[in-house]
Every structure is written in structure tokens, then in C-alpha cells.
């Protein structure tokens, strides 16, 4: 007597025989089926996982559009400065997240918490150093990238909009430098921020209001540092990420330019016919 099959979930049910094998697992009549190696199984598994994602998201044409695009002849190392800047930004974002785990944005505790990161926290000196020096590296890279774009004439039609976005990104990066400079809260950062806010105050009509907005009042007060912290780690990075996406979209859509020393190849299409 055959017992009824229990209602097993699909994953536990015995799989149907592979092609080329009969139900007992022995070689079928179509010749011996070779057992797939572990490597083949791994490749098959990865491919099916990617296939599962792609079938549901349709992302592969987009990725191909983004990654496998044509680049002009003469593309050289100068063209990597944008990617380098992006990498510097990512490094800042990651180290910044970890610094935020120990840092306290409070005027009476900021200095001590920053000092604790450097002196006590495991690898804290390294992570803080990465963030501090990475900020300088990012500014240098962004200017080199801008210089490359300028001297190669890559800002010209139809890429003007990307130049404008890039300039906004430069200004936002400088704003990151300004707001981040206060956070260690030592004498240098305090007085540098006092001077920087007062430079903002020197603008006619709007200056005084801008300075009050930055300080959260008429004097450097209890919420100034938390205000700078919020701008530094939430508001400005959010804008930067959004604009980086716009920047990269335009780079992909418009393509890169050939270096200016490369002359266009003269193809005389008319005479070729003859």
C-alpha cells in the first residue's frame, strides 16, 4: 500500500531527475551525464541569483549603459580624477559614520569626545586621521578634476550643465570643510569659525541674517555646534549625493571628450565610395 505524500513545501520535495538520467539517478540512455563540478554549481547559482534580480528589476540594460560605454581615443590618467574625488567622498562618508558613533556635538563635551576618539578608541586615531586628511585630499582632487575639465575644454557644449553641477558640488564640498572645521572644538577651530561666520556677516543686507542663522543667535551659543554638526553630517552630504548622481548621469549620457591635442580623424566619406 502506498502512503499519501505529506504536503511538503516545495523546497523539501524530491527534485525531478536531471535530463539524461532516469528516475533512479543512473545514467540514462542518452549517454552518461557528467556530474557538475563545484565551480560549475557556484557559477550556475550566482547566474541564477543575478538572473532572478534582473528578471524582476530590468536593471541590466541600465548597467550596461552605465558601464560599457565608448570612450574616445587618447583617454588617459587625467580622466580618473573624477572617480578619485568620488572615492574620496565615499571614504569621508564611511569614516564620518564611524566618527559619529563616538562624537558628541555639545560645546562642553565636543573636545573631550574628539580627544577620546584619538587617544582611547581602538583605531580611532586612524579613522579620525583618515577623515581629517581625506577632507584635504578631496579638496585637492576636486580642484585637479576641475582643472582637467577646464584645460581639456570639457566644459563646452553640450556639457555646460555638468560644469554648473560640478561647481555647486565644489561649493558644497567647501561648505563641508567649513562646518567640519568647528567640530574638534579646539581653540583653532573655535576662532576659525568665529572669523568665518563674521565673514558671512560682512555681506550687505543678508549678511547679518546669514550669520545669525549659522550661529543660531547673536553670539556663539549652546546650539551652534549641533547646528554645524547637523549641516555637516546630514544636510550637505544629502545634497552632495543627489548632485553626484546628476553629475554621473550627465557624464554617462554625454560621454567624455577626447583630449584637445587629438585632432579629429579626417574620413573623406565621399571619396571612399569611389
Amino acid at each position, binding site marked *: 500500500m502506498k502512503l499519501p505524500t505529506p504536503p511538503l513545501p516545495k523546497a523539501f520535495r524530491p527534485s525531478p531527475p536531471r535530463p539524461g538520467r532516469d528516475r533512479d539517478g543512473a545514467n540514462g540512455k542518452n549517454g552518461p551525464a557528467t556530474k557538475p563540478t563545484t565551480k560549475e554549481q557556484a557559477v550556475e547559482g550566482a547566474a541564477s541569483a543575478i538572473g532572478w534580480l534582473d528578471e524582476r528589476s530590468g536593471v541590466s540594460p541600465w548597467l550596461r549603459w552605465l558601464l560599457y560605454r565608448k570612450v574616445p581615443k587618447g583617454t588617459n590618467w587625467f580622466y580618473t580624477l573624477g572617480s578619485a574625488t568620488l572615492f574620496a567622498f565615499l571614504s569621508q562618508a564611511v569614516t564620518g559614520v564611524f566618527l559619529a558613533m563616538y562624537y558628541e556635538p555639545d*560645546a562642553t563635551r565636543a573636545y573631550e569626545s574628539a580627544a577620546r576618539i584619538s587617544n582611547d578608541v581602538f583605531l580611532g586615531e586612524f579613522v579620525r586621521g583618515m577623515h581629517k586628511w581625506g577632507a584635504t585630499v578631496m579638496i585637492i582632487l576636486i580642484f585637479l578634476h576641475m582643472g582637467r575639465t577646464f584645460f581639456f575644454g570639457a566644459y563646452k557644449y553640450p556639457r555646460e550643465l555638468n560644469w554648473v553641477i560640478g561647481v555647486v558640488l565644489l561649493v558644497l564640498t567647501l561648505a563641508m570643510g567649513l562646518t567640519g572645521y568647528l567640530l574638534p572644538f579646539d581653540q583653532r577651530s573655535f576662532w576659525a569659525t568665529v572669523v568665518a561666520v563674521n565673514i558671512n*556677516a560682512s555681506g*550687505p*543686507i543678508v549678511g*547679518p541674517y546669514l550669520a*545669525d542663522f549659522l550661529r543660531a543667535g547673536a553670539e*556663539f*551659543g*549652546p546650539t551652534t555646534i549641533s547646528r554645524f554638526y547637523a549641516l555637516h553630517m546630514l544636510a550637505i552630504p544629502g545634497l552632495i549625493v543627489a548632485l553626484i548622481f546628476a553629475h554621473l548621469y550627465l557624464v554617462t549620457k554625454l560621454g567624455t571628450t577626447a583630449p584637445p591635442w587629438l585632432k579629429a580623424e579626417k574620413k573623406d566619406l565621399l571619396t571612399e565610395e569611389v
Partner: protein
Amino acid sequence: MADPPKFDKKSRYTEGRGIAGAFEGETVTRRRLMEGGVQVAGAVAVAAFALPGLGFALGPLFEKTYPETWQNVGPEDDFNEDTYVPRVINIAPDIGDSGKTTIYVRRYNPRRDKKVEGQDPEPYVAISTRCAHLGCPVRYIQASQKFVCPCHGGIYGFEGQVEGGPPVRPLDRFYARVTSGAVEIGDRFSLNSELKRFAPRDPSNHLDGLWQYLYPSRPTT
């Protein structure tokens, strides 16, 4: 053969414009009304969090952050007419040392201090150490009777008037009064080059001539 129905594209009524399914007397299509309604609802929803957020961030511009206080800086005997005595006062609460600032105090000197018309002199001159250029802390040098700024080389005379460097107006002062023999320091005020009083301004804000109108005072003062 019947004439095709005539439609007026500029008609006030959707029916008159020949839109399918139009009701009689209808002037806006249902689709257009729904679109507008959704846009308005979205705008209201965004404004509901964006406007309070904006007010939250901009609030400190329009409110007086600290209550008016008078701080005791010592008995009258501590001060004289000819030299400044440094004192430390609190200008922002709850932030420890960074809320404190040094001021220089001396008694009003009728022989040296310039009189300004329509303005009673303060019994004590309490000079702020906040440089009128960009806010660095100035230091008083008794030998030369000058205030010197370490950052960009601003130099001020005995009364705090600009004698050199980039500052745009004299050093700020604080209101002072005497209560039962003790000198008390009140709020900050700014001065123009004629030592006329103004509501407190940020460093770098000019206060002479037409310049003063380019740097408005705070709504709270």
C-alpha cells in the same frame, strides 16, 4: 448629410469644447479637477513639514536668545580712569568656557573721553575684546595704550577707536551701571566712528554714513 457637430475650442463649457462624457454646464473636466486637487494636497502636505522645519531653523534670528542680565564685575574701587582692568563675563549660558568673554573696564574719564551729543556717557567704559574686523579677541597693551588684534593686525586707540588695520568701526562696548558700590555690566552695544551708540552688530558691519543701512540690526533689538 448632417453637418458634423460644431465645437468651439474656446468655449467655457467642456461640452461646448466637444470633450467626451462632458456634463451639461461643466467648465472643468474631472481629470483636470483631480490633477489640481492632487497637486494642492501634495503642496499642503509638503508645506505641513517644510514650513515648520524652516521656522525651526530660522527661529533664532527673530527671538532674543538670552534674557537681559546685569553681571557684577567687582567694587568701584577696582577701577580707575587711566587704565583698563580685564574682567571675564558670560555672554552665552550652558557652554562652559566658550560662553565667556574678556572685557576691559575703566572709569569714565571726562578729560579724555569724547562726548557725543544727545547721549549720556556711561559711568564706566566696558570695552568688548571682540575685534570689529572679524571677531578675534583683541588685547590691551598698557605701554602704548592701544588694543591690538592678533589675527589681521587691527589697532584701536584708548577709547576703542580704529587707528589702523582692517576694522570698520570702533570696538563694541557694554552698558554699565553702579549698584550699591558694585560695577555691573549689561548688554552689548556697537558704536560708529563718532562713538554714537547703535544696536549691537556683527563684526565687519560698517556703521558710518549710508553704510549703516546696508547692515540692519536684529529684529529683536
